[in-house]
């Protein structure tokens, strides 16, 4: 039995605009998709289920639109979904998000939890670790290979480190954060999408989970975003002038040394 945390993030092709407050992005026009790292997690959970049996539950915190991403995971083959949908949880930081996810997961019987190693939106990479900490289970982060032992009591995983591979073994239950390269996520099939419509997707509020709403939302953030700045505009290329190749080469060397400061 495994749980997979799923976050909805702006499609990487979306043009991101910074909101007038300078601290958030304009959310109206965005195409939302499942965080790509979470897709690796869902896929791995499904492969383990196909080998060992059991169930995969998708857990997410967010507004109603997130059900679309949960349904996509259900269409890929997951069994049920839980969405924590509570207006007071909007703009929660990673720690609060982890508390909410852990509150759902702690009452389930689980062997493995998967999350993406980070969200491609704010690149915090904190939720997986925090969930493991709250649940008091081992955390295996940035993983590209997962092997559950035949008897289903432990897991051996691989993490790439500086061109080497670190192999780690851990008892279960454990939490794994998925890195690119772990697998090639399957596409949801059209018949799968029809089947997903009938799979259970529960919505819960913070109160349903026995959580105190005052610890969530913008006001309760331990991490505050001070400012968002757009990346600098790409500068136009520079053409080196000169009469002869020698002159051009000398000028190029000067520019690389003095202006670009790369040599």
């Amino acid at each position: 039995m495994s749980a997979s945390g799923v976050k909805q993030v702006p499609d990487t092709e979306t043009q991101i605009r910074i909101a007038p407050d300078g601290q958030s992005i304009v959310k109206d026009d965005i195409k939302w998709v499942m965080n790509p790292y979470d897709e690796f997690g869902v896929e791995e959970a499904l492969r383990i289920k196909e080998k060992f049996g059991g169930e995969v539950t998708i857990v997410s915190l967010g507004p109603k639109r997130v059900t679309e991403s949960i349904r996509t995971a259900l269409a890929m083959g997951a069994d049920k979904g839980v969405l924590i949908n509570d207006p007071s949880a909007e703009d929660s930081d990673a720690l609060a998000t982890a508390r909410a996810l852990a509150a759902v997961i702690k009452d389930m019987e689980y062997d493995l939890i998967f999350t993406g190693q980070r969200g491609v939106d704010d690149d915090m990479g904190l939720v997986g670790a925090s969930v493991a900490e709250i649940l008091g289970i081992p955390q295996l982060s940035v993983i590209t290979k997962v092997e559950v032992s035949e008897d289903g009591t432990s897991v051996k995983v691989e993490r790439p480190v500086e061109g080497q591979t670190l192999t780690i073994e851990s008892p279960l239950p454990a939490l794994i954060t998925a890195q690119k390269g772990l697998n090639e996520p399957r596409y949801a099939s059209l018949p799968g999408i029809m089947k997903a419509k009938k799979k259970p997707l529960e919505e819960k509020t913070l109160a349903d989970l026995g959580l105190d709403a005052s610890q969530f939302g913008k006001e309760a953030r331990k991490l505050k975003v001070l400012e968002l700045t757009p990346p600098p505009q790409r500068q136009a290329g520079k053409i080196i002038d000169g009469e002869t190749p020698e002159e051009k080469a000398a000028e190029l060397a000067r520019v690389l040394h003095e202006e670009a400061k790369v040599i």
Partner: protein
Amino acid sequence: MDIFLSEKNRVVRQSVRRFCEKEIKPIAAEIDRECSFPWEVVEKMGRLGYFGIQAPRELGGAGLDSVSYVIVIEEISKGCAGLGLCVSVHNSVALYPILAFGTREQKQKWVPPLARGQKIGAFCLTEPNAGSDASGIEATAIRKGDHYVLNGNKVFVTNGGVADTCLIFARTDPGAGSKGISVVIAERGTPGFVVGDLEDLCGVRANPVSSIRLYDCRVPLENLLGKEGMGLRIGLTALDTGRLGIAAQGVGIAQAAFEEATKYAKQRKQFGVPISRHQAMGMMIADMATQVDAARLLVLRAAVLRDQGKPFSRQSAMAKLYASETSTSVTDMAVQIHGGYGYSKAYPVERYYRDARVTRIYEGTSEIHRMVIARSVLE
């Protein structure tokens, strides 16, 4: 547009879009250039249910609604119009008539392999002397004992080079005029069933459009779809649905061109500023955005009507007419915005421009559509 879509429709769009971006877009330029039908991708599409979008689940299909159907065709066509054409024709004018007019046995026999994409379907109406005027066909299907003997020359058959299951329009009663036309299913591999050379087309080149010739090709009587003499009715019913697919194809091509043009206009600088800041370019972008949305809305309206079981013939004709005209005008503007580069194969808009053109011709020309719409307005 999302306000008109159900959650299921949006999930369909998201997953098909992901598939097309990863599997189709990267090969689209190559399969256009080489005129090659990408079997590997087509087999994947079959496993994902793209060949039985609306066929019932018990017959191997996905059992989705028409709105999902047009979404799938739009997304595939955005990646590759030739594949969009393949899936549209297969689902709408090949598979659907068997569902709508077939007997229980015929459906059990033909639908599951088609819906799973294990077999590919084709619709063979057009002949050298009969295009817009379908009632002018000359192919014959003459009853002899327990067989029909087919003779004829079908041209411009979409999927022709790869199709297994072909709906052949032919005269079962050569003396009875348009009332003598019937639809008989012929399978590739039957003696006398000959696939001609592939057409060397301007666009949709990944689709193996070919002629199919029938020389004393014998097929069992139980391959008759509906009753003898029902051919034109079956054809028109099929085309009502088919047009929705072609309209969605037009929207997909236009959307692709619109996105490329917008991106290019922001990057390309002339006179010191991105060309998007030149007002004439902005006007074109505005027209493109508006036309694409209007076309998509017309397509959605016709699809919703079909899902509600209401008449949608006029609306699907309007959607097809407007979406195909939109796709030619939007791709034309996209080429214009790209300047000389738009006329080069180095940029995808050149392909979109060629692909769009045929949407005004097949499954009824724009002129025929205007006639149909005028008649339904004035009657």
